[in-house]
């Protein structure tokens, strides 16, 4: 049985190390952006809940 030609044609080039730096940099930026957005959403929710508590009837 001859060798599977699909395995022979698979490229052998090494991926440049710079790609990892770029990928991890982009991922880091995305994570920071998500955390930043969450911070605002979190604050908005907590402000909303505080407001809700303040306006709640006092006799409950």
């Amino acid at each position: 049985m001859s060798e599977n030609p699909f395995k022979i044609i698979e490229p052998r080039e090494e991926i440049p190390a710079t790609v990892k730096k770029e990928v991890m940099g982009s991922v880091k930026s995305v994570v920071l952006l998500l955390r930043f957005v969450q911070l605002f959403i979190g604050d908005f929710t907590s402000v909303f809940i505080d407001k809700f508590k303040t306006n709640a009837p006092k006799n409950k």
Partner: protein
Amino acid sequence: MLNLKNKRNASDEELVKIIVKSNRHDDFGILYDRYSEKVYHKCISFVKDLDEAKDLTHDIFLKTFLNLSKFSHKAKFSTWLYSLTYNFCIDYMRKNNKIKKEPEEALRHIADDDDALLERELMQMKAERLTKVLDTISVKDKMVLLMKYQDDMPITEMMDALECNESAVKMRLKRAKAKAVNTYKTMYGDE
């Protein structure tokens, strides 16, 4: 929480759970190290240009990170990643008009007993000729053949990757093999 050594030994699927839970980008580096070469090679085999393949690899990993929470854990992580890679490359080629129109050809009906013969003919092709054949047939047929013969994906994983049932996968595979063999014969005769 697992330490770095344990994380390096963790399965892909365990790592995905950890990353989704913690959103820690450095853990994603472990998955990158495991699969970047494979993804880069797949991009090269589609776009044939190292710079474009580099950019595609970057975009594929970023998309993978952003979609990790959508990974359902039904299929293996590698199957999911390769499927995303193939589809990303095909979309890129379509957007950049890099997809050649496949010549219209009436495919003869392929009987069941032809399948083994087609596979044997495929396996006997010379590597450099096979490369030319794969660049001539449609990108979707090329993808199916690479999944089966380069990635060694079993039918069950191809069902997940292609989102179709077993008989549909087998039919797509059979048609792709027939197209490759017919194209080979058109290009090189019956040598």
